[in-house]
């Protein structure tokens, strides 16, 4: 089909010059240009350009309402000596690491549970995804109330059970606050991991398990030597997305703690918002945001690696 389209005008050119218009009409590249235009316009104007502009802004001292002047690496030098910045880097890595590991462990476990035969299977699967549907901020507000210093239902229950004496100050104490935001993040992330891994599990043929069982494989061996290798590619992709979105998380923290207490839960994204928008030092905020890019590139590289491996596993003609 495609050869007819392109070769026609070229041959016709020798016989009688077709008009420019008819040649363009038959040209696939010309048509594709117009088809790509709307998407490209959005992505260039509001994604590629701001990405470049952000990196440029990180080298200026721009403030809200005032043009910036190029100051070289001054913002970065300033951040290098800034203890709060390093604390936010530490928090971000800690938050991403712990939350991702727990999300992966519980998500995989939940996926394995959901993959088994049981009554009301479809309904249970749809219920599991609800935390992912509800906007993060709105569920974070519910967690805020659950973590309330005075009326927390968790403290109340634990006191009634006789496990603790006083209310736990969930969001007021550094370590409790870190644990609380990580729990809320895990709560929201587990359904995503579980449902995508479940989709991967369903492509594993049951006959493999039957064959392994006949050969005397234990539960653990079946998981280790059948499920896990077949699931590796989708695990790589899901976890890359999970890590990426956890690392750049903003809304959960902002709704729950706004970085407090004493910056214990400040992530790089929230610090960037506080310095850039609230204090108005756009240049410095942009520098913090730009500092996140190397970490993101690392995550993307891992994702790429995972996909290459998948191609290798399934043959080269895979899209």
């Amino acid at each position, binding site marked *: 089909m495609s050869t007819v389209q392109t070769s026609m005008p070229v041959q016709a050119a020798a016989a009688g010059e077709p008009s420019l218009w008819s040649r363009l009409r038959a040209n696939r590249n010309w048509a594709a240009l117009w088809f*790509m235009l709307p998407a490209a316009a959005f992505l260039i104007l509001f994604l590629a350009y701001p*990405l470049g502009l952000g990196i440029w802004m990180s080298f200026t001292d721009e403030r809200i309402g005032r043009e910036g002047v190029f100051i070289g690496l001054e913002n970065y030098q300033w951040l290098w000596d800034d203890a709060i910045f390093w604390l936010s880097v530490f928090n971000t890595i800690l938050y991403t690491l712990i939350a991702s590991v727990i999300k992966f462990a519980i998500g995989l476990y*939940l996926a394995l549970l959901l993959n088994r035969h049981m009554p009301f299977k479809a309904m249970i*699967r749809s219920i599991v995804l609800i935390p992912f549907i509800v906007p993060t901020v*709105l569920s974070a507000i*519910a967690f805020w109330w659950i973590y309330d210093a005075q009326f927390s239902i968790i403290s109340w229950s634990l006191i009634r059970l006789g496990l603790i004496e006083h209310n736990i100050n969930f969001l007021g104490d550094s370590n409790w606050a870190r644990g609380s935001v990580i729990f809320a993040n895990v709560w929201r992330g587990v359904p995503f991991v579980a449902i995508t891994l479940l989709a991967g599990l*369903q492509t594993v043929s049951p006959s493999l398990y039957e064959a392994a069982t006949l050969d005397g494989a234990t539960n653990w061996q079946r998981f280790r030597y059948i499920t896990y290798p077949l699931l590796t590619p989708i695990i790589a992709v899901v976890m890359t997305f999970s890590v990426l979105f956890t690392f*750049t998380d903003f809304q959960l923290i902002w709704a729950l703690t706004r970085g407090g207490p004493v910056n214990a839960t400040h992530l790089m994204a929230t610090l960037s918002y506080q310095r850039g928008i609230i204090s108005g030092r756009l240049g410095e905020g942009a520098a913090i945001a730009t500092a996140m890019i190397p970490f993101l590139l690392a995550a993307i590289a891992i994702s790429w690696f995972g996909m290459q491996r998948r191609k290798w596993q399934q043959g080269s003609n*895979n899209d």
Partner: protein
Amino acid sequence: MTDSALQTKAPAPTATDDSEGMSYLESLPRRLITLYLPLFIILVVLLFPFYWMVLTSIKPDEQLIDMEKFNPFWVVHPTFKHISKLLFETQYPRWLWNTMYVAVGATFLSIAASVLAAYAITRLRFKGADTVGILIFFAYLVPPSILFIPLASVIQAYGLFDSPLSLILVYPTLLIPFSTWLLMGYFKTIPYELEECALIDGASRWQILVKIIVPLAIPGLISAFIFSFTLCWNEFIYALTFLQSTPNKTVPVAIVNEFVDGDIYKWGSLMAGALVGSLPLVILYAFFVEHYVSAMTGAVKE
């Protein structure tokens, strides 16, 4: 190529799903411990915040703060005071309308742009189509957290600050990469022969797209639409940065900024606000569960 795309899509809910498999080998007590009990615990933890949200939004104030006299896990005389206060005494309906307006506008713009882009990448086979596909995938990986500061100055320069229109223009950057990838997967499963027939009958590219490809990809379009709509509703950092005046805010931003007044009795209306803001999405989800799941897994798989 078409075959492999079909293969990756097809096996999801096939024979394996409802067959009993090897589960008859297990005894009931064993299933109780290894399956039902852990599943029950996880489900309770996942759903408890919603139960708490609903319960708080219909609880009278005195029961909210007196946890000794009233069991906090239940409500004695439910009231709709919080919800009616929310709907009639605050600007909540206005915020809901803003959120809806932004979500619908941005979703329609992105789906239109994505259909065109996905068709061009999968079917027109233009020079550099694969590169463009990969670039769009990378665009999917750029998070809003690193773009909001420069975007704020871009929006300021275009004179769109504090206008919901700015969100309608910016959200497509989140939605187009995702929808394009999803739709590319669907378009690949449509046989070339249909297109060839139409070309021989003299249809233009545009006619092929509108009359053949789009009707065949309706399930994919619904998936892309629902998922995009949910993403818009969920988006926070751009809305927080670009919208300043109270009546222009979207629900998530307004909840965080407008209700937090240090009042001990704020919780009822706060939870009612969170509940009413979540309901539209949960209802939409209930109707389109299958599409939603295929959107989520499709975007990861493709």
